[in-house]
């Protein structure tokens, strides 16, 4: 019995020894797989910090040495440290990409003669936006939105009201690098969520600021909050002069048809409303309602809307993107809807004949992770057509979307997750945005907007609590 056991042990030891040191050599490489370096960011024109690396394996998944790997730049005008390299004893072959001197995507393909297929590494030459200012805002639910016009920033700071800063207007000598508080106003009920400063081309007045109040709501079902109208014609004597109330629903984002003096407001479970805001506004202006429209198969929870080329585009959390008709505020459904079922939709922006929309979710609707930027082609009077999407991992929401006035730069804010912050995409190909850069903010950015001040493009964003702040980035270098 004892001899038998010893024999077994000896046999086992021999087998292990063979396995360690004197086994058969690795077979021919049957595949290569990515080992390192994919998906990096770097400054344009600079070498990446991590080389692209592939691992060659045989049929037993063992590494294969001395395999010749060919590297080719297939996107961008970057250069490689090695266009041909051989795998080392670990089966690894490497090359280092120096990024294209222009910001944008770069790609490099690895191939091995005799093997089918290839591997494509990507990297982005990103111009890091320059932080100009981080202006703390009271931690009283922080900052929700910002509206920038004529060098004035209207910060919707919840129960602290709307704070008006000179960021380049000149009235107080402020600038993006040195915002100066002009005044503030707290409207009835507080909960200031968003604002729109109405410039009336018919009268030349810049008298009214519309403020959206976001009251308590059950997402997808109920909402509350009025539109408050504030007279800002004298910035030293700001007063609330009127309000709009809709029973059973609360307001969210705005868009204005200023030439026709119509305020369009997303109203969550109330759909979309159109309000006549011509003339003098005073007291309860609920009678100014022109029309309202709800859509969606069973219910509606409308996040935002935008007027574009005579049509109104509305994004509904539950049913997706809609194209609506409007005839001086009289509303109708043209097409769309029921086109995003995996996630809940968030914000939208329409430009260049395309619509760009976001999603939020974090496993709520169908167990999806990450959030999408979706690209839609507008289709005349029919339904928008989904063309493409960008999946941003490690966030719960693409919370705000905007395209620069020149139509070349797309920005969205993201929150809740390691990739929270500002994200910037080139619209050189308007149907397929390509990543240009990012500015990460750990606590997340709830909303973001572009503004051109002194001929320079800035991004303004609402940094979430804790540490709520208005963040101003110089993004001129990103705008091609």
């Amino acid at each position: 019995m004892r001899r038998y056991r010893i024999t077994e042990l000896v046999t086992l030891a021999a087998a292990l020894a063979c396995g360690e040191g004197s086994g058969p050599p690795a077979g021919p490489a049957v595949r290569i797989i990515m080992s390192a370096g994919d998906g990096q960011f770097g400054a344009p024109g600079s070498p990446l910090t991590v080389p692209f690396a592939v691992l060659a394996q045989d049929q037993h998944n063992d590494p294969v040495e001395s395999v010749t790997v060919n590297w080719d730049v297939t996107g961008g005008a970057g250069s490689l440290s090695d266009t041909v390299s051989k795998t080392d004893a670990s089966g690894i072959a490497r090359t280092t990409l120096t990024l294209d001197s222009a910001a944008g995507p770069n790609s490099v393909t690895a191939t091995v003669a005799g093997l089918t297929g290839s591997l494509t590494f990507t990297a982005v030459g990103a111009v890091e936006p320059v932080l100009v200012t981080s202006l703390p805002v009271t931690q009283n639910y922080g900052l929700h939105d910002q509206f920038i016009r004529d060098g004035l920033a209207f910060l919707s700071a919840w129960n602290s009201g709307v704070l008006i800063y000179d960021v380049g207007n000149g009235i107080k000598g402020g600038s993006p690098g040195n915002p100066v508080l002009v005044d503030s106003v707290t409207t009835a009920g507080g909960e200031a969520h968003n604002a729109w400063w109405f410039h009336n081309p018919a009268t030349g007045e810049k008298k009214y600021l519309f403020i959206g109040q976001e009251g308590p709501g059950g997402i997808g079902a109920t909402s509350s909050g009025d539109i408050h109208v504030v007279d800002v014609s004298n910035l030293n004597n700001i007063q609330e002069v009127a309000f709009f109330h809709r029973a059973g629903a609360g307001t969210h984002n705005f868009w204005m048809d200023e030439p026709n003096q119509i305020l369009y407001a997303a109203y969550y479970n109330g759909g979309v409303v159109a309000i006549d805001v011509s003339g003098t506004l005073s007291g309860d202006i609920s009678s100014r309602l022109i029309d309202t429209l709800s859509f969606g198969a069973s219910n509606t929870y409308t996040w935002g809307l935008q007027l574009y080329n005579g049509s109104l585009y509305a994004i509904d959390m539950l049913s997706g993107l809609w194209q609506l008709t409007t005839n001086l505020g009289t509303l109708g459904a043209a097409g769309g809807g029921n086109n995003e079922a995996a996630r809940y939709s968030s914000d939208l922006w329409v430009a260049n004949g395309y619509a760009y929309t976001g999603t939020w979710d974090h496993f709520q609707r169908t167990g999806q992770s990450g959030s999408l930027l979706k690209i839609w082609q507008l289709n005349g009077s029919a339904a928008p057509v989904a063309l493409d999407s960008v999946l941003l991992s490690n966030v719960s929401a693409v919370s705000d979307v905007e395209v620069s006035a020149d139509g070349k730069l797309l920005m969205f804010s993201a929150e809740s997750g390691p990739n929270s912050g500002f994200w910037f995409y080139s619209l050189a190909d308007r149907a397929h945005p390509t990543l240009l850069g990012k500015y990460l903010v750990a606590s997340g950015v709830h909303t973001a907007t572009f503004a051109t001040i002194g001929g320079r493009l800035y991004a303004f964003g609402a940094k979430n609590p804790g540490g709520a702040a208005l963040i101003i980035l110089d993004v001129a270098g990103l705008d091609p």
Partner: protein
Amino acid sequence: MRHRAALVLAIGAAVTSQAYAQRPSADWGAQAIPAVVTTNVVPGGRTASELRIVQPIAMLHVDAFGGRLRLLATANLEQYTIPNGELAPGNWGESFEDRRHPHTVMHELMLVAGGPALFVAAGKGFVPFGTDDPMSRPAVRFPVNHHLSQILERAMVLAGVRAGPAALEAALFNGDEPVAPGSWPSWDRFGDSWAVRLTLAPLPGLETQASYAFVTSPENQPGAGPDDRKTSAAVRWERDRWYGHFEWARTSAATGAFLFHSMLAEAAVTLHRHRPYVRFERTERPEEERVFGNRFRTRRPLFENSILGITRWTILTAGDAVDLGRGPLRCSPFLEASWIGIARVGAGVFDPAVWYDRGHGVALTVGIRLATGMRVHRMGRYQPEPMADMPSMHVP
């Protein structure tokens, strides 16, 4: 400042009015419960199990002036044993979801002065609202309604009067709930919330209560959040071997925008060394967006007043505890099982069938309650002499 001055004067008057002094007396007790819990009601549709030491507490009572001045202190060490909470489907509050949050280290620190007919109390503790803390009741598992039926760990000044079988208590306190186990109430918010409770004890062993509380911005410490209006009514019976309890609670949040109801009934009986118990609960809770990195936590500080929906939790819990120790260390092993049903209330985007990948499930807890010294007192009752002859639960 005005509230603080009133507090000092009230305590001082009650104490100095005592013309006599007696030798102070003290009593203490401690407990801890090592327990294993397993459940299939877990975000992401998993089954999870864990071993934790829950409800580790130490209590101190000091009486002076013949009991007319008392100090009640309870230290809770959950900050150290369950810093990330206790696996408990349905439990919620203080940014935890489906995990019971750890309580603050200084769970109670109350100075009580006066006699049975008139008393005042001040310190940090349980607001005179609702029912006793679940820790002083038979089941180890906390009910879902903890944040609907109790208001605790607040800085408070309390006054109570008693006439025959009726007692009336009223309190001022700070509305903000703790944000972490080490946090203290916000002194600048003291007095922004109030509560009143009427208790009737018409028969020995029988106690009823009705209470109301207005709580300013409980979930937003700076005070920007919506207010709660809370109502509670309960009947409690404890006599000889028997214990029974029925309660109903309602919280109206954000001026009625959200309504949460709870109904709970529980009973226990002592059979020699065994103490079988049962609890049925039906409670609604808000569903908030979970943070990215942890599906058991929600965002704090809040920056919106929206919720994703309301769910109703129907839970039937049954268990048995065996009292093994009669010496200095009392040991009470227990086995507790729960059937858990989850349903949506009204519309909203939160769907338990997606979030938990199920509409009902089970939880099983096995553990041992270890205790020494005095028994766990009725947390939430500070009157100098107990009404209805029920000074403490018959938990070890």
